[in-house]
């Protein structure tokens, strides 16, 4: 009796539910169509709309993914703080938040994706980091965000244009059929370019010089292991701390330069001799690199469990004082290597160049000059207002000359403070505490000029006293060894090769890439561990090409031709 009664009820509710779902879906779609129609109609010519200050006020809507580490003071929030007040007073721009979310475990990307798929109001301006690159690509494809190249040409200031021109490739990943659909967020250059860090005290005790070739490197590693200057037993020493659990092309403990000595960088797209893009992992040079790694594993030069080690794990023996060499970024003298002296008091880490292969080849993988994208909505009425805001930051904040308006920092009492005599106080003595108010801005980190930080570091390395804001900043906030390491890094500036494919995932990639990556990782690791002969590299290349790699290469080159 009861079940009979319940069944139709249940059926009804399911029907009702699905019809509601259906309705809302239709509504959304219709809403979207209307909106884009309106936008096309109302897109009047907005010449000379650009102003330094808007009166009456203009409104920019945005959404925020708030870094959980970001702090606020004086009862402020991301929606309403010193930075939004500043924008209002200085430019007449009212920054209105649609929503904000603490960005842990990709919450910002998820919320943005949900907002998009449920047809909520989308922000006029949104900045998305590379961590959420797929959602940025989806938003561009959704047609909700407009072409920005013409806006940039029309409104951006000279400083910003120069910064953007340092690498024209930054536009590539946000371009569609030659149209620039998003403003790349510029980052400091070379942050993830690598050098080798070596125990200079071990070299000195052994009376050896820093290795400049792979052969010399082998001699040094052998000496580190078998005649260890600190008297460590050979099986306790890791001469070269690298790991490839996640990738052969990574940051700390990165092995890609070993292949670079033989003319290729794995797991990224390089420009081949014929000018086309080529996937580095299928280049013949890989075979020699794999042979070296296999040999080094057998001789104990690299960690026996390198296949299980991720980036942070490779730093453990380095800090413990049992590793002789670790590849990594130029800023590593601060974190993590400064802790080594706690374990081994006379340990000295020195930055050295990447050693060359038998024919003198050196390649290291380079860093993109961008770490995200700013999108501008098709519905935004005053897109030029965003340029007013950002131009000011580029002109006065990115790399200000002494005496300019934002020379000391962004907001007094937040990210800097001057004492009675006009001297800058240390960050931890700011009354009420230091907060990184730069992160309150519409674009993460405000405005960065790619080469500015390196230039500042070089000036310091050459003995100059810090005078500009950036120089003071790096002098205070980075490890003492950093300027010298930056100098080493730039000695091989022309050896830095970026991944040349930054476009959206291609059709074949969607279907095949994971499998191809899987057999690649498996083959390379098993060759290094001696479970497969070296020649299985050749059969891997055949399988890779036949299993979709050839098609992917074709698609990648089509993309490359379209942005070249």
């Amino acid at each position, binding site marked *: 009796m009861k079940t009979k009664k319940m069944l139709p009820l249940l059926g009804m509710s399911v029907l009702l539910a699905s019809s509601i779902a259906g309705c809302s879906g239709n509504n959304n*779609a219709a809403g979207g169509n209307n909106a884009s129609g309106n936008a096309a109609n109302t897109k009047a010519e907005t010449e000379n709309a650009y102003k330094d200050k808007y009166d009456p006020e203009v409104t920019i809507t945005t959404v925020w993914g708030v870094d959980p580490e970001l702090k606020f003071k004086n009862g402020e929030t991301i929606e309403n703080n010193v930075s939004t007040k500043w924008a209002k007073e200085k430019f007449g721009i009212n920054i209105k938040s649609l929503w904000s979310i603490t960005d842990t475990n990709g919450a910002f990307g998820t919320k943005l994706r949900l907002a998009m798929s449920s047809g909520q109001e989308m922000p006029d301006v949104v900045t998305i980091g590379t961590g959420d690159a797929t959602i940025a690509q989806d938003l561009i494809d959704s047609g909700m965000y407009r072409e920005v190249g013409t806006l940039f040409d029309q409104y951006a200031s000279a400083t910003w244009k120069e910064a953007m021109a340092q690498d024209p490739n930054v536009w590539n990943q946000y371009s569609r059929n030659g149209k620039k659909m998003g403003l790349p967020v510029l980052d400091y250059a070379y942050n993830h370019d690598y050098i080798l860090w070596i125990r200079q005290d071990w070299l000195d005790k052994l009376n050896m010089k820093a290795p400049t070739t792979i052969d010399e490197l082998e001699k040094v590693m052998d000496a580190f292991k078998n005649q260890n200057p600190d008297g460590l037993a050979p099986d306790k020493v890791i001469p070269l701390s690298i790991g490839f659990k996640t990738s052969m092309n990574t940051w700390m403990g990165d092995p890609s330069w070993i292949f670079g000595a033989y003319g290729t960088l794995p797991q990224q797209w390089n420009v081949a001799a014929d000018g086309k893009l080529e996937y580095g992992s299928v280049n013949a040079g890989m075979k020699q690199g794999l042979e070296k790694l296999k040999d080094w594993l057998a001789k104990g030069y690299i960690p*026996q*469990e390198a*296949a299980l080690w991720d980036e942070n794990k490779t730093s453990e023996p380095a800090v413990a004082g049992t590793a002789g060499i670790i590849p990594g970024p130029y800023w590593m003298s601060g974190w993590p290597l400064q802790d080594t002296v706690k374990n081994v008091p006379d340990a000295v880490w020195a930055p050295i160049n990447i050693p060359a292969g038998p024919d003198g080849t050196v390649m290291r993988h380079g860093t993109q000059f961008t770490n995200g994208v700013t999108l501008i909505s098709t519905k935004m009425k005053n897109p030029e207002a965003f340029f007013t805001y950002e131009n000011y930051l580029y002109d006065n904040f990115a790399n200000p000359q002494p005496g300019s308006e934002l020379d000391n920092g962004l907001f007094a009492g937040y990210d800097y403070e001057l004492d009675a005599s006009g001297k800058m106080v240390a960050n931890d003595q700011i009354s009420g505490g230091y907060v990184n108010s730069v992160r309150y801005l519409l674009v993460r980190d405000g405005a960065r000029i790619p080469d500015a930080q390196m230039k500042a570091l070089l000036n310091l390395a050459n003995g100059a006293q810090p005078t500009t804001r950036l120089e003071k900043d790096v002098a205070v906030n980075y490890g003492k060894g950093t300027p010298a390491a930056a100098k080493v890094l730039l000695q091989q500036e022309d050896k830095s090769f970026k991944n040349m494919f930054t476009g959206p995932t291609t059709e074949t990639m969607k279907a095949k890439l994971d499998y191809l990556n899987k057999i690649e990782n498996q083959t390379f690791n098993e060759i290094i561990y001696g479970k497969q002969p070296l020649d299985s590299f050749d059969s891997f290349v055949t399988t890779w090409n036949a299993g979709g790699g050839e098609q992917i290469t074709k698609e990648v080159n089509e993309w490359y031709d379209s942005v070249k």
Partner: protein
Amino acid sequence: MRTLRKNWQFHVMLIPAMILLILFSFIPMGGIVMAFQDYKPWLHISGSEWVGLDNFRYLFEREDSMQVIWNTLIIAVLKMIFNLLVPFIFAIMLNEVRKLAVQRTIQTLVYLPHFLSWVILGGILLDLLSTDGFVNQILGSFGVQPIFFLGDNNWFRFTVILTDIWKEFGYNTIVFLAALAGINPSLYEAAEIDGANRWKQTRFITMPSLIPMVVVVGTLALGNVLNAGFDQIFNLYNPLVYQKGDIIDTFVYRTAIQNGEMGFGTAIGLFKSAISMVLILVSYQLAKKWAGYRIF
């Protein structure tokens, strides 16, 4: 009808639960259609392109898909069996401990690892199980050659199952102990009068009384037969053990989540649910037939 009139209060009390069920279980089922679409979030379900069974075809067409499905099944089934067997034996043994304080302490201690995250355990195990780690040092003192637990295809599954049991067996132990506490003491008293010794009491009273609980736990676990434990595998695996360690969930993570291929992810979810439902129905029938036990 008469019962409805008499018991309508109970039905009213059911309403909130029904609403929640409809809201969070039935309505989202509409999303299942994504499994048959090339789903694009900005086109919504209504506007995305229909691709029929393409998402399913892709799952089975991959050169390594059989390997991945087998890995999943083997790891999950072995985990399921041992996660019943070990707590079953352990609970009976623990039940024989006379001192209540000792029993409680052990019970709590074996339950503790359940609360540790695999992210943390992954790091700890990497050190413990390394070729010169603690475990290999102990084995070495018995003259065993160092074993590459996490990087050797012959050992990886063994390591995964053993560590999972170590982490999780305390949970089922508590369930079984609760069932043991519910056995009527007069049964034991009667058996003692009949001259049954401790082993006989265990064999003929304790074990049969536990069977219904084993059936319940086992049947519920069957629903997870295609879940070989994403957190664990993801934190422990590496390219050297793809051959024996790559499971459906890690594969979905790489393709569906990392690349935002929602249609494909939904297809796999649907495939897993279908298999699990068949298994639950079958095991339910078997349980009813052989153990005479009805769960629902």
